Structures are given as structure tokens and as C-alpha cells.
């Protein structure tokens, strides 16, 4: 009985204090619309929009090395999409296949797998998810994902000069379409 009475009194206090503690430390409770992007020097090396993309070489799932800078001369643009083979990634990749890729035959689209850790496992994931019609780059130790501050759903678009035109989440795909449509 004593235990029950003590708990009962404490409960009222908990009901009041837990929400207050929580409200004190959460950004999402009061979201901001301020544009806080940092200024960058156009053409400088980096991962922000208007910077020169940092170069890398990765193997694809067929064991062919792909070097980013080697792709620019033969394409209007290069698009990287970072996937971890999840429902959201699948939704994005499916949308790209259906509504984006066919409209831009001279743009190179790559999915970057940063979670499976090996070419063979990545190939398996590519096959089981039904994306063998796409080129998948295997970021074995997720170095490129870290280099570009990317995560699930990140899209990076580089023009034929290697200048980054987009580096953000795929969202609904409209930004990707807009960026590609503005390419010369």
C-alpha cells in the first residue's frame, strides 16, 4: 500500500515534468525556414553545390572500375544516388527508372551502395531488388558516402564539367528533374 501511494504521488509529478524536459531540447518542435547554407567559392573543390566534385574510383557490381572524372566528357551529367536497399530507397529508385532516366539518355545514372561491403553482396542485393538494368557502384568501406556527407536517399548531380548542381535528399524527385532540365 505504501508503495502504491508513493507511486501515485510521483506519477503526477512525472506527468508534468517529462513534457517540460522534452520540450526543452528538440529542434523539430519549432522548425525553422531560414536558409542557413554556407557560402562557397564556385569552382573550388568540395561537396557543396557549385563546387568541383571530389574525384573517386569505385568498382561496379560487375567488377569494372568507374572513375568519376572519366565519366564527364561523355555525358551531359552524372547522377549519384546513395542506396541502402530500403523501402524508401526502392521507392526513389523505382521513380527514377519510371520518370527520370528515360528522359535523359545522355546522363549517366549510378546507384551507390554503401552498406553491403563487397561487390558480390552488392550484386546480390541489386538482383534481389530488381535493379540489374542500372549501374551500381560499390562503396565498400563507405568512404565516398562519408566524403560527400551522403546518406540514404542522397542525390548528387554533376554537370559535364564536374560542377555539383545538386547534393540533397531525393524527396519527391522534382528537384532532380528541375536540375537536369536546366543543364545545357
Amino acid at each position, binding site marked *: 500500500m505504501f508503495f*502504491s501511494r508513493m*507511486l*501515485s504521488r510521483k*506519477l*503526477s509529478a*512525472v*506527468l508534468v515534468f*517529462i*513534457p517540460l524536459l*522534452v520540450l526543452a531540447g*528538440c*529542434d*523539430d*518542435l519549432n*522548425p*525553422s*525556414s*531560414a*536558409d*542557413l*547554407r*554556407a557560402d562557397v567559392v564556385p569552382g573550388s573543390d568540395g561537396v557543396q553545390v557549385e563546387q568541383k566534385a571530389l574525384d573517386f574510383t569505385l568498382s561496379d557490381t560487375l567488377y569494372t572500375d568507374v572513375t568519376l572524372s572519366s565519366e564527364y566528357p561523355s555525358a551531359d551529367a552524372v547522377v549519384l544516388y546513395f542506396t*541502402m*536497399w*530500403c*523501402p*524508401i530507397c*526502392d*521507392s*526513389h529508385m*523505382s*521513380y527514377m527508372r519510371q520518370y527520370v532516366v528515360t528522359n535523359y539518355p545522355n546522363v549517366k545514372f549510378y546507384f551507390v551502395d*554503401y*552498406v*553491403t*561491403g*563487397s561487390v558480390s*553482396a*552488392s550484386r*546480390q*542485393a541489386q538482383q*534481389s*531488388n*530488381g535493379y540489374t538494368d542500372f549501374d551500381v557502384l560499390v562503396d*565498400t*568501406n*563507405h568512404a565516398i558516402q562519408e566524403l560527400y*556527407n551522403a*546518406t*540514404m*536517399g*542522397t542525390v548528387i548531380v554533376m554537370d559535364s564539367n564536374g560542377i555539383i548542381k545538386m*547534393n*540533397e*535528399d*531525393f*524527396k*519527391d*524527385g*522534382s528537384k532532380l528533374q528541375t536540375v537536369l532540365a536546366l543543364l545545357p
Partner: protein
Amino acid sequence: MLLTKTHLLAASFMLAAGYTGTVNAASCCGGGSASSLILPKFGRQMIDVSLDLESYDGFWNSDAVHVADPPGSSLNQQRLNFGAGYRISSNWQTSIIMPYVWNDNQYAGFSTKTNGLGDAVASIWYEAFDAITCVYKVNSIADLKPSIYYGLSMTLPTGVSPYGDVQNSFDITGRGFYRLDASLLLDKTVFPWNATLQYSYGVYSERPVNREYGNYIEPYDKNLGDRSLLMFSFGYTDQTEKLGTITYTLAYSELEEKTGEIDGQTDPTGGLEKQSLAFTVAMANFDKDWIYKLTYNKATDGTNFPATEIVSLGVSHVFF
């Protein structure tokens, strides 16, 4: 207040039926949310603690086809839910649930463990009945009258969302949006049988976004789609030798979230569906003020949603 055996039985049914558990979560999808908690009639206050052990086994894609996770992966989330309910008056009650979430995701080439608060849920419920409707025998039509509850729940974005200061998708423990749910719950017990039906409809509040996974981006407005949950359950109660009870409950639920909007335009990549089955065994003591629960929940079908299994262990204490 003198409580009759019927009052106590009704209390044990409500608690056993699973109205103190969590609904769903997925670290990559921004889970970690809790549902609501309902006090039994004549219960003054309640505390509830539960532990959810959720594991993922592939997902259903947008065509509702099940797709396996990458080889060598083990994706899990654990949630410790702290809940408290408080009766305001004879027909009104309020509650809050605060989850703490651990994400434990291992791929063959990637491993991460993170933790943080999930999204909290604050609720208020109105009981549209004054007396217990639990009966032992149906003698008239009036005996079939169910207990009716009307509820409003506010989900608060207290978890870690993609729009906060996070490094990657594995850190997420919440969705980042306010949501208001209106609920109707019907509950009927004809001892030893029980049935419940619940329908909830939730609306998210649009919010500005200026950061994704820690990177500041061009600001935009985002909203998630309306959410509906339909659940019904059937239960059976056995009495123990010491006049406690053991209740077995089977529940089926359908969850749907429509596509959301970005800057006022429909996001065709959003939306989800999930159907699941749950089986709960709940033990209550003679006074029905301590209830221990074990639930197994399995997602049976869906679209754009992980295939999950959840084992929940919980204990509730009611102050009559």
C-alpha cells in the same frame, strides 16, 4: 471506492487488449512512435513500462512485393516506453507516452548503433459511458451495449528526425512532424469473451525544412499524408487459482498513410500500408492493479514498409 469483480474484470480486459503498446517503427523510415494508453474505468492513475524488441526481415516495395534485406544484414530497433495515465474526471482521462529508442543496424559492410528519445504521444479520452458494460450473461439488448471511447492524440516530434542535427539515416528515432489523431474505440466484454474495434484518423502538420541529415539545404515545406489505423481484437480470459486472470488476445490491424506533399505538390514516392497480426498474453493479479503483458506482433503484408516482428514485454500498475 468499492470495486466489484465486474469492474476489475473490465479493467483487466482493457489493459490486456493492448492499449498500452507501441504501434510501429522503422529506423530508416523514422519510427519510434508510440500509441496511446487508456485507463480502465474507475482507475485513477496508471503507469506503464514496456520494452519492444523489433526486428526487420526485408520490406514490401511499392508494388507490395517482398524484397529481402542485403546479405549479411541484421536490422533491429528496441524501444523502452514510459507511459502514465491520469483520470481528470469520471469520464475524462489523459495520458502521455515517451519512448526511448535504440537503433542497432548491421550490414555486411556497415554497422551502427544509436539511441535517443522517440516521438512522444499525449492523449485525452472521453468515455461515453458511466457504468461498466462488462457482463457475464446477455439477458437483453441493453447488455450488448459496448464501452465507447472518443480520443484525441497529439504526436510530438521529440525524436531525432532527418531534419535535425544527424549524420545519417541510422540515427533517426522520430519522424519530425506533429500529428493529431482522432480515435473511436468500442469495447465489449461478455465474460469470458471480449472484442474491441478501434479506428483512428491522423493528420500531420506541415512544417518547413532547411536541413537534411545535418546538411543545410534550400528551405522547403513538407507534409506527410493522412494516416488511418483500423484495429479489431478478440480476447478470452481464464481465471487462475489465486483469482487472478490470464487473457489471450488476438488482434488484427491495418495501417495506411497516404502520400504527402512537398511545397504543395504531391510526393509520389511517399505513402505506406501495413497489415499486422498480434497475439497478447496478459496476466493480472487478484486486485487487477498489476498487469504483465507479452505480445508478439508480426507484419503480414504491406507496401513501402519493412517486414517487422515485434516482441513486447510490459507491466502496468493501476491506482484505483
